[in-house]
């Protein structure tokens, strides 16, 4: 079952007097239970692609479909879709500094309109599953890099999204913490059939994905079709 689909996406930027084509006719299908990795050199447009898939940016051409329905980042329903159907994990975790770990994880539920008590209870349960039961009431600056990224991952999963979009989730971590996060992603994908689209530079990690794409010179092509 196709959850997320990108059709003929194209994006270019004007850099002083020349136009840089970041994406040319990119196509991508994400089905339930997929673990898709996108690799490529720095600055090749991987994050741009992920932002368009996550309805954070609009393509110049082409379209993004969620469960067969075309949506754009500027549409009225985009915020609701981002909240309900998509989960995001960034390289720089982007936790809200003034909130505790459990409050950060509860945010998507609160935004969706759930009560504070229910949201906090669900967030605490999820964080405990991630081995962070001792860190629930710690602020982000009181957490290690790996813990921060696990909180970020929990926040992406709290609303049971159809797909989690992760932009180099281990890019800022040491190898040990990086392996922990990657293990968690693999486990969630295996046990819950949670779909992931992960951007990574780590070819070892990419090898464990169900499908790997490489983005080079604006062209997205499967590595192991």
């Amino acid at each position, binding site marked *: 079952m196709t959850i997320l689909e990108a059709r003929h996406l194209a994006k270019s930027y004007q850099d002083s007097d020349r136009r840089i084509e970041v994406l040319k006719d990119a196509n991508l299908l994400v089905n339930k239970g997929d673990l898709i990795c996108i690799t490529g050199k720095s600055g090749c447009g991987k994050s741009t692609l992920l932002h368009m898939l996550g309805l*954070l940016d609009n393509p110049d051409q082409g379209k993004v479909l969620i469960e067969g329905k075309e949506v754009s980042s500027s549409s009225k329903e985009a*915020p609701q879709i*981002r909240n309900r159907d998509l989960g*995001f994990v960034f390289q720089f975790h*982007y936790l*809200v500094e*003034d909130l505790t770990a459990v409050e950060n994880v509860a*945010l998507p539920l609160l*935004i969706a309109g759930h009560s504070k008590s229910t949201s906090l209870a669900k967030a605490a349960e999820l964080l405990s599953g991630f081995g962070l039961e001792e860190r629930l009431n710690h602020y982000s600056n009181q957490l290690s890099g790996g813990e921060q990224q696990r909180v970020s991952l929990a926040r992406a999963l709290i609303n049971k999204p159809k797909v989690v979009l992760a932009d180099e989730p281990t890019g800022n971590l040491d190898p040990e913490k990086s392996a922990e996060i990657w293990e968690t992603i693999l486990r969630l994908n295996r046990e819950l059939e949670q779909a992931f689209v992960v951007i990574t530079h780590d070819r070892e990690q990419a090898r464990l994905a169900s499908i790997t794409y490489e983005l080079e010179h604006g062209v997205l092509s499967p590595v192991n079709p």
Partner: protein
Amino acid sequence: MRFSFVFMVLGIVLSVGILSAGLNLFAGYERTLKAVLLDSFAHISISETDSYLSRHKADQLIPKLEAMPEVQSVSPTETFSAMVNKDGEVHGALIRGYDFKRPFPYRKYIRKGEPSLDSGSVYIGHYMASELGLEVGDSLKVVYPQLNRVSALGIFPGEYFFRVAGIYRSGYYEYDRSAVIMTLEDAINVIMVPGYISNIELKLKPESVGAAGKLAKELEATYPELVAQAWTQNNDSLFRLIAMEKWLIFIIFSFLVLIAGLNVVSAVVTIMYDKKNEIAVLKTLGAGLNSIRGLIFYRIALVGIAAIILGQIFGWILSLLIINQSWYSLKGDVYFIDQLTIYVSPFNQVAIFVVSACLILICVRLPLRRINRMEIIELIRNP
């Protein structure tokens, strides 16, 4: 963020405090002046149209006036200008003669000396006493030019010696500087118009003071040969001027709050840029622009409102400090009274709160509109 926030709060507290103190002092001045004017002068003064009022006519009129339900006291008086002299120093004086067989309406202003006057004794104003160096028991010469005492050298004034029986202080500067109060008979002797008085003073009951103008018109209608002058006729323009000045001060000082509002704009912009990552996260997680704006607005507005209330308390403390200091007092010859007082009017405080809150909330709201233009993608790309 904390730095700009502290200055934002400080700016609001100071500007609202100055606005509040200014209005407290002005309201206090207005209230005190009104009280002093109402207490120091007749509420209605009745006189003949173009001459003195005969004692006979006054004696017939007084019981009728006393029977009026609005009237508290009636005093036949003799009022005229003269000069006083002490050891060669001459001072202008307003002589007022009262019938001390009747209750004296200004007894509470006798600060020193005897509670009542006999023939040959006077009460003098506090400032006149200090300027001429007079104390209770001293002698004072009253000089009054009399047209029937003309010699080849000119008008030969009448000179009368009185004993100072008490010092009078009403708070109304001009009166405290010139008043010489004596018995009605002594005043008639000085002016040499036996059988006549200059006017009848009416003091009204507190609840009827506001209706003095209406009552004076009714009296003139009943007694067409008499002129009835209400206190409002003499002082109406003064009170209107004071009220206008008060609101002028309110408007001018409100600009201070507006200037503090600019600090608020700058603090909100700083907070927005300081929290851009959080804003990006909230947008990414699907929060609507209104809820993000509301979240920031609610927190800053709450601090702003608390700062306004603190400012009002600071204004009250500031006005207390001003009235209790000793290095500045009002110039009585300019402001009529020489004492600074405050009055914390609930209406003024509500007006200050509402106007300040509106200004501050607008200043919080305006920069938050920029959140619409903050693109998530830019915020995420430039952490």
